[in-house]
């Protein structure tokens, strides 16, 4: 096997491992939210201004849903307050919307919830301090895995036709060796 093929194979193995490493890195709540946003948004309307008629309201609803999708529902298991139907989640979603309407930025709203519930409330951990491990470790493992895969494949490529590395004799036990000798003699 050529050297180029080894590299290509190692790269392939790495790529196959990549999505797994990515999902381990951050629990992305976004995938499930867009469809739910549309369901949630009209119900959020407190007055007669409708998201269907007022583009500014629709924009506010969308932004509220986006911010809320990053906040953990306190009474659920790993669900955002957008996905959750709990009363508390609905009300927290409303708080997010009210604060946005009052001119607060998404970062300020997140900071508000962190000050009340702790950093636990954020579904996406902030990338600082010990949290960096969550972001960095998958990458480190990925790079390490790449080199392990490359070395393995290299060894495999340098092996002879019988699948045994050329620089090492086959390590058979005494019984197997006897069996092999007998078989060869018979044929």
């Amino acid at each position, binding site marked *: 096997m050529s050297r180029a093929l080894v590299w290509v194979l190692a790269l392939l193995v790495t790529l196959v491992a990549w999505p797994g490493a990515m999902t381990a890195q951050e629990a992305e709540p976004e995938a499930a939210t867009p469809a739910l946003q549309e369901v949630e948004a009209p119900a959020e309307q407190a007055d007669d201004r409708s998201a269907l008629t007022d583009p500014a309201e629709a924009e506010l609803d969308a932004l509220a849903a986006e911010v809320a999708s990053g906040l953990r529902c*306190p*009474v659920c298991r790993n669900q955002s307050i957008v996905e959750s139907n709990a*009363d*508390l989640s609905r*009300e*927290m979603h*409303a*708080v997010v919307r009210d604060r946005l309407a009052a001119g607060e930025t998404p970062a300020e709203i997140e900071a508000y919830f*962190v*000050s*009340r*519930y*702790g950093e*636990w409330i954020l579904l996406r951990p902030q990338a600082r301090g010990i949290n960096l491990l969550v972001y960095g470790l998958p990458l480190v493992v990925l790079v390490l895995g790449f080199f392990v895969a490359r070395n393995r494949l290299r060894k495999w490529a340098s092996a002879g036709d019988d699948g045994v590395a050329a620089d090492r004799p086959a390590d058979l036990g005494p019984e197997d060796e006897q069996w092999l000798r007998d078989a060869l003699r018979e044929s």
Partner: protein
Amino acid sequence: MKKTQLRWLLPLAALPVLWLLYWGMGRDTYVLPSPMAGLQAPAFELITFEGDTVQLADLEGKVVILNFWASWCIPCRQEHPVLVQTERTWDDSEVVLLGVVYQDSRANAERFLAQYGGDWTHVLDPSQRTAIDYGVYGVPETFFVGTDGTISLKKVGPVTWDLVQYQVDSLLAAPRAAASAAGTGGAP
């Protein structure tokens, strides 16, 4: 790289796992960490069953025990006698016990109180805004607020008499020690 060179890495890899076990088993899992302790209690303005308005600002200078509860909450029944005793032990001029009804109707709350007793003030929190402002997960949750308006403790789950006594005594003692030596409240 030689295998023998890497062999010493193996026990090293076990260290983080051991540390995690040490940390995880060493902590009290019944204590939920709260960032609220030590902070100024968020202001609120809530309506009592009788229609009066209660503001946190009105209670300044007193120790405030803010108890989030609901009639449907079983642990609230469990802690209720402790709250009744709290109400009996300290005078309103020193310690104010305030019940915040969480995700419950006034009628249900009143029925609960008629059955189990307790005539301290209760307020309604219709859209749970105050609960969210206090970072409440569920009921019962109790906040101990000092005379300076600082939260000294957030207790998740039913309070015990020992806890209430210790908290209130230390909150009453702390600022009063400077003001006046006599007349500090205490449990009988």
